[in-house]
């Protein structure tokens, strides 16, 4: 079979102030019709550059300086503008990383979709409308007709991604380019999108190139996988082979950094220590757009000193609200939050004693906004030492160096500006800043979510080291269940502001489980060859302003019982091994899975 796409020694440079930066030194790839190829690598490795080069859309500064891209027998590097226009969106379609910014905010979804067949297949309006509606139905968007009349901002992130996929598929392209197809989505939504893409590529026999930083995502989508590092493909193999016997050191490192279900690292079994934090009945609501959003409702959590407790849930589940209430950035409405014997629930930072403030510190999610761009990275650590730390005989500079050493950064980095640091280094600085006052409890609010897999692993290691070496209790907030069950001692699973299940981390993997926990576990992409989980959640989280009266999870629950679930809040059932599950289904029945 002749290749659909043949890339030979492709060389791409970006102009920069001093000398051109070589993004791709010589990339080659063959793709047969209908074949799917996944490219995995960390940010800046050149994978996005490759997609843009295929579309001849590198933007100002980017230049193809050598090689050939032959698509359906035509060399795209020598093609004229008219030929390129036919190829782009017609024969090759791109699903961009951020669908929100790819959809025109001032045009209805329908009009944007209709443009594709009208432009590429020269069909009339009525025909285009029909096709657009069919495409929305194909990507399983609920109410396709209604969606046609809506604007992008009226759809959720998962729905926008489906619209972007529908738009890409409308022209019946021979090649589909997927740029991080699930990176902005919640895990259960991402799992459904991956299912959809797999099904669509089988139906239409469309060839795919998917790029991602997440090996599990491309492995789920593609039969063949290439591993990219600094512009070069260092390994290329069938997915199953790659997982079973990775040859290149970098691939081995990527696999090792990938958290896997059940693959828990040896943990210090049940760290002793009294209860440090005891939260019960905590509630917090906000006024948003004319409605009340109950971010936290009857929230409960208990953490022993020196343990790592994780809160897991998808965006909007209330996990960050709890972090901010606990840290004192916001006040809770009602409930109790006893920390080291004293209730902190109603008291924000201003009402807490200096020692209470120093005792609970926080590492934030976004490395790009966690440091002040106007100051050196050492400045916040020095300030924290001055304002929070107990007096010590050592000079401040020595204590700063010691903190930087603890987060495994050179002392000289203290004089650098934030923009000179990588994302991982910024998060290390944030950890050093939070540790300056020797806190008893460190909150890591999605602190590693924005980092590449290998960097993520080292930062998690660092947090565990701090937990062990300093006896710091760590509250690890994440959406990544696979990661959490591997490192935490206790896990709290949240949905819609309420606790669905809590208990020891190992308890989470085996039944009896809350149906939501089971769905979260099923959403973790399995290694190739492993049986695919069957549970998929319907729809998306309900509007937080109008939560269901009964169980918050009822509208999406695959084991929904009927009126009981809709109208009555579920009872909390305690399992034999200390887990707590909020569900109407009796434990023995839940245990059947």
């Amino acid at each position, binding site marked *: 079979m002749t290749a659909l796409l043949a890339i030979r020694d492709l060389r791409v440079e970006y102009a920069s102030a001093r000398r051109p930066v070589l993004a791709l030194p010589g990339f080659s790839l063959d793709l047969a019709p209908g074949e799917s190829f996944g490219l995995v690598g960390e940010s800046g490795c050149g994978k996005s550059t490759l997609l843009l080069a295929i579309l001849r859309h590198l933007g100002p500064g980017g230049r193809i300086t050598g090689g050939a891209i032959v698509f359906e027998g035509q060399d795209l590097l020598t093609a004229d503008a008219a030929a390129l226009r036919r190829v782009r969106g017609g024969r090759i379609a791109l699903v961009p990383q951020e669908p929100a910014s790819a959809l025109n905010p001032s045009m209805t979804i329908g009009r944007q979709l209709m443009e594709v067949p009208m432009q590429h297949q020269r069909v009339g309006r009525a025909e285009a409308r029909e096709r657009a509606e069919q495409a929305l139905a194909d990507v399983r968007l609920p109410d396709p007709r209604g969606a046609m009349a809506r604007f992008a901002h009226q759809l959720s992130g998962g729905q926008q991604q489906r619209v972007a996929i529908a738009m890409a598929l409308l022209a019946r392209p021979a090649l589909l380019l997927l740029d991080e197809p699930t990176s902005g989505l919640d895990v259960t939504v991402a799992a459904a999108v991956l299912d959809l893409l797999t099904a669509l590529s089988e139906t239409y026999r469309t060839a795919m190139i998917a790029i991602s930083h997440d090996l599990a995502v491309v492995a789920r989508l593609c039969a063949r996988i290439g591993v990219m590092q600094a512009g070069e493909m260092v390994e290329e193999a069938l997915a199953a082979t790659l997982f079973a016997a990775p040859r290149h050191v970098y691939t081995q490192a990527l696999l090792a950094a990938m958290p896997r279900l059940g693959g828990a690292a040896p943990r210090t079994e049940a760290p002793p220590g009294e209860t440090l934090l005891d939260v019960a009945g905590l509630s917090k609501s906000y006024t948003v757009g004319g409605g009340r959003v109950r971010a936290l409702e009857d929230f409960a959590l208990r953490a022993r000193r020196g343990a790592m407790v994780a809160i897991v849930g998808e965006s909007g589940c209330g996990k960050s609200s709890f972090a901010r209430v606990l840290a004192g950035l916001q006040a809770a409405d009602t409930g109790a939050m006893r920390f080291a014997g004293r209730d902190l629930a109603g008291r924000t*930072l201003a009402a807490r004693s200096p020692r209470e403030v120093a005792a609970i510190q926080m590492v934030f999610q976004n490395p790009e906004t966690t440091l002040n761009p106007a100051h050196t990275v050492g400045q916040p650590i020095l300030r924290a030492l001055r*304002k929070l730390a107990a007096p010590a005989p050592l000079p401040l500079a020595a204590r700063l160096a010691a903190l930087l050493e603890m987060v495994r950064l050179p002392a000289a980095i203290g004089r650098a500006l934030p923009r000179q640091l990588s994302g991982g280094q910024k998060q290390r600085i944030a950890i050093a800043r939070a540790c*300056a006052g020797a806190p008893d409890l460190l909150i890591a609010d999605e602190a590693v979510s924005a980092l590449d897999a290998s960097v993520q692993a080292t930062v998690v290691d660092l947090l565990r080291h701090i937990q062990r070496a300093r006896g710091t209790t760590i509250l690890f907030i994440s959406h990544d269940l696979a990661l959490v069950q591997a490192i935490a001692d206790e896990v709290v699973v949240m949905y819609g502001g309420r606790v669905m299940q809590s208990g020891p981390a190992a308890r989470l993997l085996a039944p009896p489980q809350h149906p939501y926990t089971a769905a979260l576990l099923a959403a973790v992409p399995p290694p190739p060859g492993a049986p695919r989980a069957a549970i998929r959640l319907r729809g998306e989280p309900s509007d937080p302003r109008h939560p269901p009266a009964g169980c918050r999870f009822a509208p999406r629950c695959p084991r929904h019982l009927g009126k009981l679930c809709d109208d009555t809040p579920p009872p909390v059932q305690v399992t034999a091994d200390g887990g707590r599950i909020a569900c109407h289904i009796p434990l023995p029945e839940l245990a059947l899975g």
Partner: protein
Amino acid sequence: MRVGRSGVAFVGLALILLWVVLALAAPWLPLPSPTAQDYAAFAHPGPSAQHWLGVDPLGRDTLARLVWGARVVLLLAPLSVLAAYAVGCTLGLLAGYYGGWTDALISRASDVILSFPVVVLYVILIANIGPSAFNIVIAVVLAAAPGVGRIVRGLARRLAAQDFIAAARLRRESGLYIMVVEILPNCRGPLLTDVCIRLGYTTIMIGTLGFLGLGLPPPSPDWGGMVQQAGPMLTVYPAMALIPAGAIISLVLGFNLLADGLSEAP
């Protein structure tokens, strides 16, 4: 810095520096006194060997008055803009960082002032408190501070929502520290451009006040006043009014080009 790479900014800076150098050197330049009247030059007010740019209706040397007048503008404009910034930044930071009632109070008060046409506001103020250098500064502060405050408020609001501000609160920094050390330095970029534009506006304003007779009291050399005094001679010898008007234009153009250059550079 950035000025070096932008041709537009360089031209602007050159224009401004030309006036600054002339103003600084005024006492040592071989010029007649700006208030000395040369009755002999009345008959021919145009350029001559003694008076390169001619004289005004009272026989005073135009070049000398321009150079000494530059001292007035270049002292008053930056001084009043600086004062407006001190007030505007304070109000903007308070409104942006604290929000709520503080914000509502400051923003509504600013809206009231901003709803007046600027020229009318200046005229009402100066006419009431009398023309003097100090009162010009007061008037500029009152008219410009709400605008500055509005810019700073917007920037501060956006910055206050960032994690590094939450981090600063978590280490028990005071509100004052957060506003001045954490937020204000990050407003520098947009404000730098605004300073230049505002210097230009203020230069025009000082000229306008002088033209309306509300500038510095005579016999101080004042560019706006010079244009106004040349009015009766407009049909006979238009250059008498056009020369000081050109001086105002060149300085304002300098400030605006510098602002353009600063905002275009990456």
